[in-house]
């Protein structure tokens, strides 16, 4: 369930401690990139029914950015990793 998130730094923490940024599969384009590319980055989403990688910020904890892999149908959390480790 998405009520509890196991932060790799802080352990099992309640959802209220986190800020959800959303889709972690989009990559910020270079400043010179075409308008179309920026539009896709800022606005367009896959919004899958199933596994979704998303950025969660542990705002009221260690303040690290995490990547949470979650099932959008069952709400099961499959994996939580530090975003820095994945970059």
């Amino acid at each position, binding site marked *: *369930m*998405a*009520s509890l998130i196991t932060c790799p730094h802080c352990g099992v923490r*309640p*959802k*209220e401690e986190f800020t*959800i*940024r*959303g*889709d972690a599969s989009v990559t910020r384009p270079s400043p010179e990139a075409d*308008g*179309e590319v920026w*539009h*896709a980055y*800022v*606005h*367009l*989403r*896959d*919004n899958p*029914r199933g596994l*979704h990688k*998303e950025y969660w910020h542990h705002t009221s904890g260690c303040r690290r950015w995490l990547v949470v892999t*979650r099932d*959008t*149908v*069952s*709400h099961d959390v499959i994996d939580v990793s530090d975003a820095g480790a994945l970059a």
Partner: protein
Amino acid sequence: MDLMRYSALSVFLNALRGNKSWGPAWRAPEPKPHYDVVIVGGGGHGLATAYYLAKEFGITNVAVLEKGWLGSGNIGRNTTIIRSNYLLDGNEPFYEFSLKLWEGLEQDFNFNAMVSQRGVLNLFHSDAQRDAYTRRGNAMLLQGADAQLLDRDEVRAMVPFLGFDSARFPIQGGLLQRRGGTVRHDAVAWGYARGADRRGVDIIQNCEVTGIRRKNGRVVGVETSKGFIGCGKLALTAAGNSTTVARMADIALPIDSHVLQAFVSEGLKPFIDNVVTFGAGHFYISQSDKGGLVFGGDIDGYNSYAQRGNLAAVEHVMEAGTAMIPGLSRIRVLRSWGGIMDMSMDGSPIIDRTHIDNLYLNAGWCYGGFKATPASGWCTAHLVANDAPHPTAAAFRLDRFKRGYLIDENGGGAQPNLH
């Protein structure tokens, strides 16, 4: 006489016959091989689109394909609030058009939808918020809607049991739209379904669309759980599943799906006459005719297709509710549920054509799509019939995100879970 037209006389005559002559409110047809227009999604917007296509635009060779049963989506899950209290030019004329349609809807489709203009009161708690609501009220008046700013004493006379003296969020007044209110949500689905069916529209339940077949850059039909169904034009009205359905035509949308929860209490004697919304947190409440308090708050905040939420949001809603009405703490909640909504990147909807000539999109309704149902149906039917937008829906373009013409009521930015 036509016993299927509902009236006092038909109730009387049917009663004389022991109520054995009532027919089903709509047929259960098998799909035909081809329709002029196919509509994907039998929620409020799909059914209203079909109804107005048949009634206002004379297009009756239409099918509505619904993967579940009528009312299984958000049309049967929302908190039933209708209002036209928007700020921005792109929105307010459309929602006022919708409120006017609500006012005549029951006569129009001959069905009791319990439209109740009991007033919607938005509380404010600070000077800055009063200024913002004054501005909003003026914007509403400019578009021909009604709006009235109440001071603290006037609010107290209306709803005396609010937490006026809360130390953190004292209530300073409210913006009242008297013509706002509530409507029995599933009766809206049934009324439109019956009205469309009687004009020749086929409503096909348990028929999931799984693919959109194209040829030479045009849609020729849809693959469904009941086989291939051909069409001249295709309209997508799949609410929380818009991205899934649009992807079948290789269209990516500026939308994430989110779950919003709602709650009903045990039945009480008449308690709250109006719809009241909190200004210091997300909370809104009304009382159903059965006596249950109907209330809700914010979305859970993560992408979801689950039609159920989690406890963090439940706790948040209860905290906001008891902050606004301290007496709520003594009331027991009977049930709660969730619905999946399209949260768009600017919090506003899309009614537009797509790059595929005969494919039309109705999506992105966020929390606000129930009140929009009549106008959304009318404007989508207008678009499908005329290939041109209805004047009140002209701002709901799909390409506005790329062009920078966002309609962002609360200035939340391109972050769907903040709208």
